[in-house]
């Protein structure tokens, strides 16, 4: 029983991290109709920047803020220079974001070296709670809380604010929104950069969990996020939240009992869902 509880918490923490990536991807896909293969790279940069700033300042919150800021700025630059010329051309978007991924992964290697850099958890969250036979890592609880807070914040932003209203209207009819005197391009850039910042936040929070940062960690997590997106239904925010939890739990349980099967299980789960429900669990129409 205590193993079950521990894995549940591990899985939810894992799910929270995947969610940070998947939520950004999902919103970018839903509003902009852009599939962003630079998400894995933003994840890596988030991790490296947080370690770098942490080693200079020794402050965990500052490191996290720096990583998020770095992700946001990279997102703005990517959107302005590379994504904007290819809105509406899915193939070119996939190709360009893949190319950017290659460049920025190698840049990370150039700046921080090819070897993994060890990272430690912030002291105030390094402890564990022992309840009966269950050992709970404080950092994982922290991740779950962050995941929930981000989900609530996004939900509030999209469904309860004026900004969110413009975003939702932009999904329906960007030209109409533009005609009403709202500069939809600013919103597009903001959404892309926001998604990028979430990916960087995910990277920055992932590094203390696994204890090191290396340039190969992006692709694995990006694939998990993609699986979540398709599993949950493309462009569905709730879908990506539920999908993240499912995939997080799956990864935690399978990797506890038989680690080599983790990758196969997540993909098999995806194929199973696609067979039974081709549009994904919460599938709905995405802007064409």
């Amino acid at each position, binding site marked *: 029983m205590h193993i079950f509880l521990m894995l549940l918490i591990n899985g939810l923490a894992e799910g929270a991290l995947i969610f940070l990536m998947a939520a950004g991807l999902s919103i970018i896909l839903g509003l902009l109709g852009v599939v962003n293969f630079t998400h894995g790279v933003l994840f890596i940069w988030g991790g490296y920047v947080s370690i770098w700033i942490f080693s200079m300042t020794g402050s965990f919150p500052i490191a996290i803020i720096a990583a998020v800021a770095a992700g946001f700025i990279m997102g703005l630059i990517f959107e302005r220079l590379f994504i904007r010329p290819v809105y509406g051309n899915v193939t070119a978007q996939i*190709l360009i974001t893949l190319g950017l991924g290659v460049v920025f992964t190698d*840049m990370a290697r150039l700046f921080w070296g090819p070897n993994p850099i060890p990272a430690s958890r912030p002291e105030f969250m390094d402890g564990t709670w022992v309840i009966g036979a269950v050992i709970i890592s404080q950092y994982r609880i922290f991740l779950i809380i962050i995941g929930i807070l981000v989900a609530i914040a996004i939900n509030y932003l999209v469904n309860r604010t004026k900004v969110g209203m413009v975003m939702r209207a932009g999904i329906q009819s960007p030209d109409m929104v533009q005609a009403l005197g709202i500069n939809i391009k600013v919103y597009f850039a903001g959404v892309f950069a926001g998604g990028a910042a979430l990916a960087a936040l995910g990277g920055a929070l992932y590094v203390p969990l696994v204890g090191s940062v290396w340039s190969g960690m992006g692709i694995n997590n990006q694939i998990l996020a993609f699986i979540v997106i398709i599993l949950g239904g493309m462009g569905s925010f709730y879908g990506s939240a539920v999908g993240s939890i499912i995939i997080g739990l799956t990864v935690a349980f399978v990797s506890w009992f038989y680690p080599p099967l983790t990758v196969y299980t997540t993909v098999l789960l995806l194929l199973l869902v696609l*067979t039974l429900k081709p549009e994904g669990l919460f599938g709905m129409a995405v802007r064409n």
Partner: protein
Amino acid sequence: MPMLTNILRKKPALGPGMWLFLGLFAVLILIIPHITGLTTTTLLSRIYILAIFGMSYDILRGYTGIINLGHALFFGGGTYIAGIMFSRMGATLDILLLAVLVSMVFAAIVAYIMGQFAFRGSGFTGVIACAMITLAFGEIGRHSAETLREYTQGADGLTFRVPLMFQDRVMMYYYALLFLIAMTLILRQFVNSPTGRVLQAIRDNDQRAKFLGYDTKKYKLIALVIAGMASAAAGIMFALLTRFANTELLTVQSTLNALLYTIVGGTGTLYGAIFGTAFVQLAQNYLLELRGIHEIFSRWLLFFGAIYVLVVLYMPKGLVGTYLQLEEKWRKRKIAA
């Protein structure tokens, strides 16, 4: 060079000057291994083989409009199958034939399963789902090669011997050349066949092809199976050339290499892949030689990505496509004048 255009447009109507040029070029290609060193010979053999990998991608990207991010699975699969069979069962010609057979069956089956899931959607979301699902398939392949250490030696890579007749570098050059010519003819036949025409219709407008009564998913599956088999064949040739396989061959980067060959050369031209591969490989070699001047030149991936992004943004038709376009414009201007 209007005659070159004719060749590229697959309707050769050549004047005597062009025949002379082509003849000289053919002679040059044939005697190159005897007038240059081993390095150049091997580099060219490599280009010939990788060009088929690129061409197989062009069947997908250029002729069917599919982005397959797990294409390395077929190429790397071919290399690994040949390598594992050579190292376990001996490096003889019989085993090579068996390896060809096994890898063709492997490629066909994997392509079929991959396509069943990847080609579910259509239109905008279909393209995205296809890219993501093929990426997941490709990662399964890489992951398997890394975990099945007993057969693949994991990340260290697998070194193996090849049959005697492929051990001579100069002879290997001619085999690679022969392979390039044969595969080019086969694939050209395929893209110009009625099936190939349907694929192009799907690329141009998926929905219209569907409304015309074509089972687009079936045609996409055919394209993926053919491309997968061609790519696995190139993988086997690559095994014979390099006598080494590592998991690098199965990464997304390996797929992106093939993608770069086709987009630099020009998608939807088939021949473009040959020019693209030559350009990319020669550029890589040249930059590596500049390594002594500045350390930055050893970071090939930076240049790889930069070329990639620039080509997609500013030269989406690639070398051959842009040439054909300029040629067209030039001819129209001549007619107008």
